[in-house]
């Protein structure tokens, strides 16, 4: 492993985080299927579909929900290639690693046997497919919601669905400061990288990482202290107040009904 590859890997994940936020901002401002509905309807609708996909037990029905998820996504102006690179391949990478062995390891009626080497069983194939499909469906639906809805709207929707105001504010503030801290950490790592002072030994690399983390921690705590003062200065008294001016229109009710029916139907057919 090259000297600074662990730094490079870290820098890459930072860059990915920013890229994701950028895609989110762009897609959220388009006019599309999901964007048409009130954020609360979107949150409820997507949640219902995700849960129904998890609950139902029939492979064919899960596949149908997956199809529905893709339809919603492309109706909401998400390109299939965006979905593929951001969601499907990522999920496949993770889920695949876990699901693939199940094809060989699950006991049951064998479908294909290479004696002494491996045996593919029918239940194994079914399980693996179920796993992958469920993960992809849930991931597609969640990604569509988040990419097509401004983060603050997702949070405000959760707030009107009774999530405590403090939690919502914490989620909002954390999200806002994640990017500031990534930027800070980014700069710290980049400056280390550019200071090519020969190969660092293992312990030196670890010390460097711990030190960067420590500096980041100190800055974080100081930041929180200053933010606290800024909040006090603007009248914060401990009680969280949010401005939530979503208004349900006729088509929102129809959409809500649509989502709920789809979910109920899925659960009933797939039981």
């Amino acid at each position: 492993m090259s000297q600074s590859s662990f730094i490079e890997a870290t820098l890459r994940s930072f860059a990915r985080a920013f890229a994701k936020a950028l895609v989110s901002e762009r897609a959220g401002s388009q006019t599309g299927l999901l964007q048409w509905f009130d954020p609360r309807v979107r949150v409820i609708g997507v949640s219902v579909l995700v849960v129904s996909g998890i609950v139902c037990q029939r492979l064919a029905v899960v596949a149908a929900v997956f199809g529905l998820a893709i339809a919603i996504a492309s109706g909401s102006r998400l390109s299939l290639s965006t979905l593929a690179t951001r969601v499907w391949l990522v999920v496949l990478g993770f889920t695949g690693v876990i699901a693939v062995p199940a094809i060989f390891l699950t006991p049951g009626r064998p479908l294909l046997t290479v004696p002494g080497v491996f045996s593919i069983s029918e239940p194994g194939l079914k399980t693996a497919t179920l796993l992958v499909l469920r993960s992809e469906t849930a991931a597609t639906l969640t990604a569509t919601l988040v990419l097509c809805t401004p983060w603050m709207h997702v949070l405000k929707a959760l707030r009107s669905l009774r999530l405590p105001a403090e939690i919502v504010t914490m989620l909002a503030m954390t999200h806002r400061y994640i990017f500031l801290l990534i930027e800070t950490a980014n700069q710290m790592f980049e400056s280390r990288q550019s200071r090519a002072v020969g190969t660092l030994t293992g312990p030196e690399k670890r010390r460097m990482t711990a030190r960067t983390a420590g500096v980041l921690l100190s800055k974080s705590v100081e930041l929180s202290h200053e933010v606290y003062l800024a909040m006090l200065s603007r009248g914060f008294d401990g009680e969280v107040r949010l401005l939530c001016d979503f208004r349900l229109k006729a088509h929102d009710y129809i959409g809500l009904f649509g989502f709920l029916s789809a979910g109920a139907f899925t659960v009933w057919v797939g039981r």
Partner: protein
Amino acid sequence: MHIPDGYLSPSTCATLYAFSMSGWYLALRRVKRALATRTIPLISVFAAFSFVIMMFNIPLPGGTTGHALGVTIAAIVLGPWGSILAVSVALAIQALFFGDGGITTLGANCFNMAIVGSLVAYGVYRALSSRSEVTARRRVVAAGVAGYISINIAAFLTALEFGIQPMLFHDTGGTPLYAPYPLHVAIPAMMIGHLTFAGLAEALIAAGMVSYLQRADVGLLRGAQDFLSTSTPLVSADVRSSSPTQLWWIVGCLMVCTPAGILAAGAAWGEWSSADMANPHTRAYIEAVSGNHKVTQSVPAGLQKWSTVWTAPFPAYAPRFIKSPAFGYLLSAIFGVGLLVLAAALAARITRRAREPESQS
């Protein structure tokens, strides 16, 4: 260790969500009481910090890299309740916004990593560093050990949650509906990675950061008044000293409940509980729970097949080491270590109480 959607059954998800919600509720109440108006910015920024730490690639001995959670340092600086909230918020954003971990499994992930992780990390750190100086080397080691144990316990819980799925949730044909690997595959599979890489990464980061902070910003380790001279403590001493007792009980209950939970799940079958009789470790639990009645050593004939559950998974396919009883004991040992630490800390606390009047920990 982030469990994605589709691996845990709806009932498992719901149960773990319920556990987590009580954890969050408790934590929020305690933290708000201690920090009043300061809670929101402090927890938020720390959650952001925790999130960024999870993205670090930590170079490990041997040339590989691993990822840490940052839960240990969060528990050390914020205390267990603040850490529960901060890490939960980070996990929630990872799941919702970045797609890392499922939303139906958020309750499970928070339970394993944020709640149990924080409590165990805090407990072990305090137990091992006891009354040493904030700048003592002992604290660095304590942080490392706390991180290692906490990550592995979280991984173990995750493996348990995975492992009981095929047993409890399958269709009429026997096909597993959710996570397909039984305990004797899930546990080794998860534990190997964490005993070696992730646990080490967390240990290194925790120890390394404590060492750094001892030199650069010792106030953070003290956590309280050193912070600001505005006379509003960051984490009031009141929260830090009054919580350990309750804390130990909670950690203790969690550790006992987990195997008992398996027993309970099996009790519905009427078969599973006797399988644990084959395992000497859980036999001790059963004895303790059953008022110290001796448990029969012999397994009823009708349940014989379950006594071989450790050695006869899929004969043709499973690698040899899984069949070895040594593995069972290894995993029991991990559990045992946790229990021993718990017992030691309890003992330390009791003797300290006996020696002098109630003081700040």
